[in-house]
């Protein structure tokens, strides 16, 4: 051990009480920091990995038709799934968001509820999920029983508020994704233990029956929710996905006897005088001549659909004959006014036309292309909940009938929850700040006293031939050792506090119960954070010590030797 190190270590244990006091203060601050950090990490863990995953996923892709943002509908689930899997990194799971809010009527009591479509399959669920869906009555088999009408799991709390119990029925009235009202019966086949307050809003139904209730066909789904390995990358990933989504002009390839090729495209109404005729169509002059059609006539065509075997029939009302010499649209283009067009387009989405098709090149050249509607539009990314909510409400004013794709993250949709993490981080920051001042004041004061007491000693060592740099080092090292010992004991104390607090069972039904894991506070100790904190605090202490130590080193030897305490 070097001379300087030996001196510093021995000096450290010289003013025992003073250094013990400062050391205890630093250790105390450090333990608070460790506990606050672990708690904050624990909350983040609960929020990001458990709660938000249950509620909304870290990210969500929605397709909204006719402004019905509460009941989004994705017409080609597989296409979106493949788009997501090939463009999102660190994807743990894609979940179908099948949920709808409705009023349920039980036995003489009624209550609002959210029906959530989930596959509760004990073999497939994670440990967390299995704990979440723990039955106190009924059976898991019944949940998938096709002979029961809409078998549901319901929490005991919800069952009470509806006055129902096992095998009872609940009548509901809900809106399908197409906006139609419908009534249905749900059968209670399982009672769940209420784990927390928000769980009591929901009842659970298998996805197959849920889709049927919502009016979704097998290839369709509500929306897709993404669970990410790195929840905090959600915004970045959402932006990426948003960027690669590109819309095209919507085209339905059609069949009219004797005319080939022919297509139906969407005419945006806002550019033209409004027309209330259903399925109002503009046809090109040559087509009108070949088919002997004129304004006011009705025409019939068929078109293929992506998910239907047989062609779909569609009857149009000719409202205008146009001259294609000015529009320069692809030959055989029939224009249908937007609302009618989209109704048909989404109900029976056409096969995909390869991008190599000549059609696209022709459309690109057309001076009329700005009047044609897209297959979908993409909503700009919202950055706040406020913006997101406003954007959703604004969709009601959209009359063209085009569908909007929205790519969102928990940061917009669950911002209140995410904000909690921010608050906790702030608590940690305040702990750091308090600690910072303890160190600043403590170290400066302690060193100042120490240096005054040891002035003559400084003079002696300088006279004997110790360099200024070494005098400075002895004091800095002394503080270094003090801060290392205290932060280390702080870490140990912090871990003990965590172990102690974590062992307490907390019985509460309040909102805060959502922050508990199995009725215990949840701490996550991140070793890297601990080490970073330790380094940070030791660094602050050493930097703080540097200035008084430098002053001590600069005292003239003769002055120092004259000094009497």
């Amino acid at each position, binding site marked *: 051990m070097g001379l300087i190190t*030996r*001196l510093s270590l021995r*000096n450290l244990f010289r003013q025992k009480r003073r250094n013990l006091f400062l050391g205890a203060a630093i250790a105390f601050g450090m333990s608070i920091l460790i506990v606050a950090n672990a708690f904050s990490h624990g909350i983040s863990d609960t929020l990001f990995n458990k709660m938000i995953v249950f509620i909304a996923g870290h990210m969500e892709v929605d397709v909204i038709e006719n402004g019905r943002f509460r009941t989004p509908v994705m017409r080609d689930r597989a296409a979106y799934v493949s788009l997501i899997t090939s463009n999102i990194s660190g994807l743990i799971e894609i979940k179908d968001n099948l949920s709808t809010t409705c009023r349920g009527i039980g036995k003489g009591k009624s209550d609002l509820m959210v029906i959530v479509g989930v596959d509760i399959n004990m073999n497939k669920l994670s440990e967390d999920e299995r704990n979440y869906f723990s039955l106190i009555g009924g059976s898991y088999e019944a949940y998938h029983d096709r002979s029961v009408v809409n078998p549901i799991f319901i929490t005991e709390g919800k069952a009470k508020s509806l006055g129902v119990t096992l095998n009872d029925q609940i009548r509901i009235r809900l809106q399908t994704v197409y906006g139609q009202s419908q009534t249905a019966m749900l059968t209670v086949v399982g009672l769940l233990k209420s784990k927390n307050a928000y769980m009591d809003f929901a009842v659970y139904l298998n996805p197959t029956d849920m889709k049927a209730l919502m009016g979704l066909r097998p290839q369709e789904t509500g929306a897709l929710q993404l669970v990410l390995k790195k929840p905090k990358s959600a915004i970045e990933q959402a932006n990426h996905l948003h960027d690669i989504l590109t819309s095209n002009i919507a085209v339905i390839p059609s069949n009219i006897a004797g005319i080939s090729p022919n297509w139906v495209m969407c005419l945006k109404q806002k550019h033209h005088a409004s027309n209330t005729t259903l399925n109002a169509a503009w046809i090109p002059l040559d087509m009108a001549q070949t088919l002997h059609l004129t304004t006011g006539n009705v025409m019939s065509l068929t078109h293929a659909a992506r998910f239907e075997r047989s062609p779909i029939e569609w009857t149009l009302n000719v409202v205008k004959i146009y001259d294609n010499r000015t529009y320069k649209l692809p030959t055989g283009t029939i224009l249908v006014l937007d609302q009618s067009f989209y109704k048909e387009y989404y109900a029976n989405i056409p096969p995909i036309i390869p991008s190599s098709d000549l059609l696209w090149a022709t459309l690109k050249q057309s001076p009329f292309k700005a009047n044609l509607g897209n297959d979908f539009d993409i909503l700009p990314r919202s950055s706040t909940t406020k913006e997101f909510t406003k954007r959703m409400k604004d969709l009601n004013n959209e009359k063209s009938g085009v569908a909007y794709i929205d790519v969102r993250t928990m940061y917009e949709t669950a911002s209140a929850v995410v904000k909690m993490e921010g608050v906790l981080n702030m608590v940690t920051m305040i702990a750091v700040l308090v600690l910072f001042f303890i160190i600043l004041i403590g170290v400066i004061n302690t060193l100042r006293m120490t240096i005054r007491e040891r002035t003559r*000693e400084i*003079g002696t*060592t300088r*006279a004997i*031939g*110790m360099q200024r740099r070494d005098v400075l080092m002895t004091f800095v090292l002394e503080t270094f050792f003090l801060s290392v010992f205290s932060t280390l004991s702080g870490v140990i104390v912090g871990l003990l506090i965590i172990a102690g607090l974590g062992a307490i069972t907390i019985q509460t039904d309040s909102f805060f119960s959502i922050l508990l894991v199995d009725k215990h506070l949840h701490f996550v100790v991140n070793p890297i954070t601990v080490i970073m904190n330790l380094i940070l605090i030791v660094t602050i202490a050493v930097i703080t010590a540097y200035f008084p130590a430098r002053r001590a080193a600069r005292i003239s*030897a003769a002055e120092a030797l004259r000094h009497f305490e």
Partner: protein
Amino acid sequence: MAISTTPLIHLSSVTKEYPLGNTTVHALRGVDLTVSKGDFMSIVGPSGSGKTTLLNIIGCIDQATSGSVVIDGQEITTMNDKQITDLRLYKIGFIFQTFNLIPVLNVIENVEFPLLLMKTFSKTEVRSRAERLIEAVGLSEHSQHRPAELSGGQRQRVAIARALVTQPAIILADEPTANLDSETGNQILELMRDLNQKEHTTFIFSTHDHNVLAYAKKIVKIKDGLITE
């Protein structure tokens, strides 16, 4: 031949002023002094006459206000702090009135201290040199004791061992016996005189005690910042 005539220490027209409030204290008013190798010199004078100031300047722990200070052929008034510190480490040993041992180090560690600062000797070399000096001052049995566990005389012996361990050219002792009873003081002075005779180490010590003068080979009297004889 040149070596024998070159003085070890040569001060000429050295003054030292201290600012004190609005006035200036003239602690030294033009001191000329020559010390040769092997001298055993005493500086005497009443309290406040400038003994400590003079020793500090010779010992390079204080700077003269004006004049020239040459130590072992080197003019120190133009050196920087690092060079002066090294000069003190290698050429000068100090013995203080209040002993000034380092309380957290034991006897042997205190004696080793300047050798360790030199960083030139191996651990065993340092240890054996220190042990030899502790033996020379008669403290072998106390080598593991902390200064607080020693008497005043014993402490001053440790200080002497510490001053001598680097085999410096000059040893400066500012009133080395002032804090000791007269018997112990005499023992310390005898020890110093023995070392001067055996090792030819140059000693300069200050005192205002006339009994002490009996030991000196050369006496320099100082009064009001001036050497009177």
